[in-house]
């Protein structure tokens, strides 16, 4: 780390290091290696040097900020509005004594969005635990069932109400998208949940769920990173958590300050990306395309 130039203002140090690193790579690898040769026998794909640089940089900043947070340095993160929306919806359901419905999307647990949804689910379970209202979790992929069961059980336990956990409320419905949607609609219509929380990876069924939920008069909060479904959630739900906010909400809810470090890390990455974008656009405008080409991935 000594070889990196250090600025006097420590805030900018990581940023400068990255820029320095990028310049170094650009100097070391001037061919931008758009090589087309047969790589089936080699152990490293030189066309992907740029990816490696970004990956190392991104992992670096995230781990750096998480370690900073671990040391107890306070990191400012603005209040995420989605959190209030979830709390408000659950609050209304408890006031009315009506159930809460949590829909974790239709993709398997190896999808990161589903993992984020599971983190949120544990915290929703904790909120609900004290009020003796059921928390329904309909599930589309069998692999998500054990994870959801564990999260709900743990949430109830950490709220001091392990007895309130009802195993029958975490329900596998169907792997088939529209059969699943039909099953969830059934719960919405007949159990009349007051709060519908839709978090995870959704596809065409998004609007079916959100419209049926509206029909039953529930407060609906939805969150997904699937861009094609966001318009429907925005139109039909009371509050929509957009894209990265889903992951931010899960990081915030996990209540461990060190995990918030990752948010800082991805913020820094965004700042770097904006810088690169601006630089790239200016260079391209002046006819210098080498910088842009370096970002080309084969």
């Amino acid at each position, binding site marked *: 780390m000594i070889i990196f130039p250090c600025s006097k203002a420590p805030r900018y140090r990581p940023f400068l290091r990255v820029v320095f690193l990028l310049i170094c790579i650009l100097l070391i690898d001037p061919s931008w290696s758009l090589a087309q040769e047969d790589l089936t026998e080699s152990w490293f794909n030189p066309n992907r040097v740029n990816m490696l640089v970004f*990956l190392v940089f991104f992992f670096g900043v995230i781990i750096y900020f998480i370690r900073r947070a671990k040391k107890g340095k306070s990191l400012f993160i603005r209040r995420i509005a989605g959190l209030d929306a979830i709390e408000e919806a659950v609050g209304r359901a408890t006031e009315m004594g009506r159930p809460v419905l949590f829909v974790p999307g239709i993709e398997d*647990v190896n999808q990161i969005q589903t993992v984020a949804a599971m983190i949120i689910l544990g915290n929703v379970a904790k909120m609900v635990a004290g009020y003796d209202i059921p928390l329904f979790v309909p599930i589309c992929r069998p692999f998500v069932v054990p994870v959801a069961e564990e999260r709900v059980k743990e949430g109830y336990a950490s709220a001091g109400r392990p007895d309130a956990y009802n195993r029958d409320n975490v329900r596998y419905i169907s792997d088939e998208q529209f*059969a699943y949607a039909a*099953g969830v609609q059934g719960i919405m219509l007949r159990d009349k949940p007051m709060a519908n929380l839709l978090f995870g990876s959704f596809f065409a069924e998004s609007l079916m769920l959100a419209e049926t939920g509206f029909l039953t008069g529930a407060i609906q909060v939805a969150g997904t990173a699937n*861009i094609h479904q*966001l318009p429907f959630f925005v139109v039909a739900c009371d509050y929509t958590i957009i894209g990265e906010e889903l992951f931010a909400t899960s990081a915030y809810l996990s209540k461990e300050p060190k995990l918030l470090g990752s948010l800082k890390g991805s*913020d820094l990455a965004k*700042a770097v990306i904006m810088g690169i*974008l601006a630089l790239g656009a200016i260079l391209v405008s002046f006819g210098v395309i080498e910088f842009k080409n370096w970002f080309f991935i084969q």
Partner: protein
Amino acid sequence: MGTAELIWNGVAAFLVLCIYSFLYKDNPFYKFAEHLVVGVSAGYFAMILYYNAFLPKLIHPLLAGQWWYIIPGILGLLMWARFSRKYQWLSRPTLGFVIGSGAGVAIPLYLQNYVIRQVHATMLPVGFTSWPLITNLLIIIMVFCSLTYFYFSKQHKGAFGAAATFGIWTLMIGFGAGFGMTVMGRVALLAERVVFLRDYFAELLSALF
């Protein structure tokens, strides 16, 4: 259309009408169709996994002497430890495998497709001299402001807040456009269903009279 097909298609037409009855309100016909679709599709997926995963991906390789397929077999069997309260924890290595490999595959792909490729595509020549250049500038400004909206380390106040607001406007225009583009595809699905019903009833009438 023969009699058998007329009857089978009649079943299909009846089920279609059962589902549409939901639009008026929840009713026994819809409930019937709903439970039927859940049951049938659960059975359908069991088939698909049995014939397309279990047999060709596990049993056939094992029978062909590819012993290393015993590993996923064991990982899979460990999942069944969930049936026992005492040995539930045995399913965790399998969870670790599925989640870990999922995350590992996703990381480089997300970075490649959704970050670097997008950054590369957004580095457009800008200027004020021609309409395409101005449009490019607009694209970059919009991407910038929308990214600002997703920035969590700073309060949305002042100039920063203004940028984030412009960002949210951009997102809203995008959502509106996405909504408008989708209508056609959804209506196409409905049209297909209506044509199915129309043709069926035409056939039925000509068969009866």
